[in-house]
């Protein structure tokens, strides 16, 4: 135990240095061969998962008591969720956790997945637009990662259908983590701890090199463990109606009413139907229109279309919309009642979603909606943030922020 404390202290000195010259310091760490020791991979599944004889973690929750129409995972209160992504091993999941929090994945050792998907901020970052490597401000807001195991469309513009595809975006974007597969694998393969951990997680010898596929699998495994299904809303859904107060129930009724129509796209139990919708939300001042899904499909009818986000834990993930234009939930729900297309730039012809209309909600109803949205918060299965990671680089938990 003393030994570990000693190493931590030693590293802390390193981190102070690191704040000023991250990449140089990282180089130093490697050349000196200083790697924190004592990493083990958990052989137990995260909460919400059962360990099988085949050493895989299978998702278990109360929504599995229900069915859904056409097995699409959309409906009402007692409706099954969409098909879940599970079946990773506990070791892969835990390795993914280290990778997720380890800035080693970024080119200069300053940015980890958790930089923009911070567990303390609903696995988002609290910023309107996320900040990547070298202080680059990217064009969109970081989405939450809660319940991604149930999703089949990723990125605001929906351009990936698999987490493994999605993560290549930020990893290899020059504005986000700024690395390349070759360079990332070189860093990982130079790290003895990672070589051991990957070998263990993937059941092979440590003298074989780490592959990019293994990196993607491990991170996907960790992300799929982020399950949030125990909010007060869920208690209501499962039949305990006292879980919500009168105001929150009224808010739920506004939410599902065909006047506000929130539930038509933010459909329970995931609170998204995972479709692309054109809302016509305003961009931040001075920013041109983000064409969203049109940039992916080339289809003009999807101009400014974005993926409908899940609203689970939404109270934790301000600011809102693709470019974080709205700083509060109240402001966000207010958007929908200010007139169809009121924020569409002049000269733009967007094919707005048919549920964008003139619901004329009262201020009181907007307040009720916010009250209801706050009942969707549940972080009871929050994972442990590692205090140290195999690279020895500072993590978001070490309270030393990389210089920007």
């Amino acid at each position: 135990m003393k030994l570990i404390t000693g190493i931590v202290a030693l590293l802390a000195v390193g981190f102070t240095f690191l704040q000023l010259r991250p990449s140089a310091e990282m180089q130093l760490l490697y050349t000196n061969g200083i790697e924190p020791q004592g990493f083990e991979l958990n052989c137990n599944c995260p909460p919400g998962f059962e360990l099988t004889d085949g050493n895989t973690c299978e998702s278990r929750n109360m929504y599995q008591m229900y069915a859904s129409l056409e097995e699409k995972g959309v409906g009402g209160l007692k409706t099954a969720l969409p098909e879940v992504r599970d079946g990773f091993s506990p070791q892969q999941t835990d390795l993914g956790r280290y990778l997720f929090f380890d800035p080693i994945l970024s080119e200069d050792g300053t940015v980890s997945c958790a930089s923009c998907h911070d567990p303390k901020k609903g696995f988002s970052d609290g910023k309107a637009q996320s900040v990547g490597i070298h202080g680059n401000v990217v064009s969109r807001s970081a989405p939450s990662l809660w319940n991604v195991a149930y999703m089949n469309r990723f990125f605001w513009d929906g351009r990936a259908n698999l987490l493994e595809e999605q993560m290549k975006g930020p990893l290899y974007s020059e504005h986000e983590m700024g690395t390349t597969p070759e360079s990332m694998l070189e860093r990982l393969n130079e790290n003895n701890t990672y070589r051991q951990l990957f070998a263990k997680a993937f059941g092979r010898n440590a003298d074989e090199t780490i592959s990019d596929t293994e990196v993607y699998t491990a991170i996907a495994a960790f992300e799929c463990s982020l399950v949030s299904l125990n909010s007060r809303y869920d208690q209501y859904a499962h039949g305990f109606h006292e879980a919500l107060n009168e105001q929150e129930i009224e808010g739920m009724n506004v939410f599902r009413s065909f006047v506000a129509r929130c539930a038509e796209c933010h459909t329970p139990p995931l609170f998204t139907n995972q479709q692309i919708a054109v809302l016509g939300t305003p961009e931040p001042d001075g920013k041109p229109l983000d064409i969203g899904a049109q940039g992916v499909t080339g289809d003009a009818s999807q101009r400014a279309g974005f993926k409908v986000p899940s609203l689970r834990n939404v109270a934790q993930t301000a600011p809102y919309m693709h470019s974080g234009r709205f700083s509060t939930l109240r402001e966000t729900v207010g958007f929908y009642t200010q007139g169809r297309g009121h924020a569409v730039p002049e000269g733009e012809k967007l094919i707005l979603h048919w549920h964008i209309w003139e619901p004329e909600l009262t201020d009181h109803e907007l307040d009720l909606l916010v009250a209801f949205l706050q009942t969707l918060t549940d972080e009871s299965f929050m994972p442990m943030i590692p205090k140290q990671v195999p690279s020895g680089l500072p993590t978001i938990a070490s309270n030393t922020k990389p210089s920007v």
Partner: protein
Amino acid sequence: MKKGVVILLSLAVFGLGVFLGSRFLGGKGSTPALPYGSPLSSVPDSLQGSGEVASFFRGQIIEVKDGESIQEAVGKANPGDLIRIYPGTYHETVYIDKDDISVQGVREDGEWATLDGKGELNDAILYSGNGVLIENMKIMNYKGNGIMGQAGNNFVIRNNWVFDTGVYGIFPEFGKNGLVSHNVLSGIEDAAIYVGMCDNIDVRNNEVFNSVAGIEIENCRYALVEDNYIHDNTGGILTFITPGLPIKTCKHVIIRNNFVMNNNHVNFGQEGSLVASLPRGTGIIVMAADSVYIENNIIAGNNNVGVVVSDLSFGAQISKDAEVDPTPEHVVILDNVMMNNGSDPVDDVKLAMATQLKKTGPDLIGNGKSTGCIRNPQAYTSFGLGHFTQCDAPSTSSIKSYLLPEPYKPLELETMEKGKLAFYGVCSGCHAYDINMIGPPVQVIQALYKDNPKGLAEYINNPVKKRDDYPEMPPQNYLSEETRMAVAEYVLSIGQMANKGMGRYSYHSEELKEKSE
């Protein structure tokens, strides 16, 4: 053919007499009759006679009198109960998030139990429970819906009088196995009856008028629209796929024995809504839906066109959806009576007529790609459907109903299975098998409650602080009594089961290290 005439004649009697539904409403005297049983357990009585089956409700009767709250009664009701609402005006939004609740208006001396939103409230009735029955209610002046269901299966909505309830009159969504019958609806700015993303639905014996769209079957499978009187709307019956929805097909729809008459109402749909571009005078639209059968309807006096068969290029501007097949396939038009349609069609139709030097407007028109057949094509004026073959498809009469032979059953799980789902879904955040987490290990709990699942279930419901080394457990009273008992039994069984993997869970190693330090 003769049989067809007989059916049409009997339909005529029905169509004019939709208020015959009042035969459900009981006789005279101080105790109005209780509802008949669920037609879901047999073929509909309109085809089969009396429909005398087992009682729909099986619990208590809760009465609501004028001046009282319907919602309070729903709050008190348990599955199986019947809520009887006496004549009076009720100004509220009623939501039913429980299973097997019946809501029945009682009619006395011609007076109705009336839900009146006074133009202030959003919806009259919202339900998500299964087995909900709503009948004999008068519903008016709401902004959103008369009756809206989200995911309730096995529903019955019948004998209601719904008008001026905003966007939709009766709107079941995400439901399986439901009946919408003998309702009278008018003054709805979108669809009077809107069946959205449902399976196995019968819509029969309704009168629908003065609305923008009469009956919509959208992204559904197995829907029967029969014996309805649909008149004086902008459009009569619409069956179609809306792109951009999570359920992406619409197929196996029978439109049979309906009157689709004079649907020439000016379109008063909201700007931006899908029906806002619906041309007035349109009898039936089949858009992108597959295996649609149109049989034995009287389709008359619709000034634009009798029946439109179209791909998704028709109508509203809407974002494309690569996962939707836009082409209607296997559209089967059997014997129908079509007359006086197309007397004042939209410009596109006029143009089509001009190119063929026709002066009579269309009974049938095709737009874009489609496949299908027409029986007796020479009987109709028709444009754009020359590629349809001559039908040799038989009549749909062998299909009496698309309802399931028995109510759709919820998943049936063993007690242990339920306990396991609740344990991993909820308890595993704090408890592991043989290691300390936020709460004590399962092994310790097992030692304390050996052979006493009831005691454990009670503790789960109402915990008391027992140990200094753990934080106090919050009450898990939101779990039902049944679930608490199932969890208790499961927890006490962990480790005794053959599956060795079971019981080895917890969370990450560091947390464990911290605990052990």
